[in-house]
């Protein structure tokens, strides 16, 4: 269990850094979704299944969906300006 927790902690650290390093917002939203999923697994490994459940849904579905919608709107506005 400890090994699994350690591995997941490292993965989450790598995942978080990746989210920051990916500069394109659209890709970033997808990577953030994967990162959210990782966090959910981490919470699960630390014996917080209820937190994991909400983290998985919020982090990997609702949040990316909202970001993508916002980006779509921004792209639309930019298209109007040109």
């Amino acid at each position: 269990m400890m090994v699994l927790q350690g591995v997941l902690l490292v993965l989450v650290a790598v995942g978080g850094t990746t989210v920051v390093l990916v500069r394109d917002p659209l890709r970033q939203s997808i990577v953030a979704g994967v990162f959210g999923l990782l966090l959910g697994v981490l919470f699960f490994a630390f014996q917080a299944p209820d937190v994991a459940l909400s983290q998985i849904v919020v982090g990997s579905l609702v949040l990316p969906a909202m970001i993508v919608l916002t980006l779509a709107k921004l792209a639309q506005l930019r298209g109007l300006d040109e």
Partner: protein
Amino acid sequence: MSRRVRSGLFLVAAVVFGSLFIWGLLGLPAFGDYQGPYGIVLEDVAVEERAGVNIVVSTTFDYRGFDTLGEEYILFAAALGAVVLLRQQRGEQKDEEEEQDHPADRQRRDTSDALRLLGLGLVGPLVVLGIYVIVHGALTPGGGFQGGIVLASAFVLVHVAGRYLILKRVRPMPLVEITEAGGAAGFVLTGLGGLIAGSTFLFNFLPLGEPGTLLSAGMIPLLNISVGLEVAGAVVLLFSEFLEQWLLRGRGGGA
């Protein structure tokens, strides 16, 4: 501010923050070493006192029910604020082309069959899972917040599956608003029940029942259902408002 001043400032801040952070880490108790007496006491008495076998939910919805009320209203206020902002931007204009030529519906042609099939196939199980998690709040990990968000994600998936018009049909906005408001009101009304029963606000006034059964833990299932409705309503409302904003091709929208 020049580049040099900026990186100098960053270096100083990083060193200060880093040393404080390491200092704080060194003072932490050992990994897994829990020192809160409150949790240990609850672990012993909660099942007997409240008949809910999920002690986390017994704590959040009963012993600390008032905190959860605040939490619920944070979400309520946040959703409301976002909706007010987005609707004001949109003004009173209505999309005249409604029902016929939505960009979201045109997008349907770009959505792959595999994605649509998978998305639509997941909607049913997700709705069932959401309801299950909500009503089993006192029994299994999860509860109103988790179940509500799972329920809301089913609606998001309907959109991902590429059918905006179907989403509109399964999600009449007034109903979503009523669900959200009803969930928020339900929590307070259940809490008022405690006052009517002659005790304090959020006093667990309902019969506790047999631990481990669906109808146990007194008012905790009721509170879970309220929160579940509120969360599902709030997230669907937020998502819908964002979606509507996108559908308004540049009309208003702060351009």
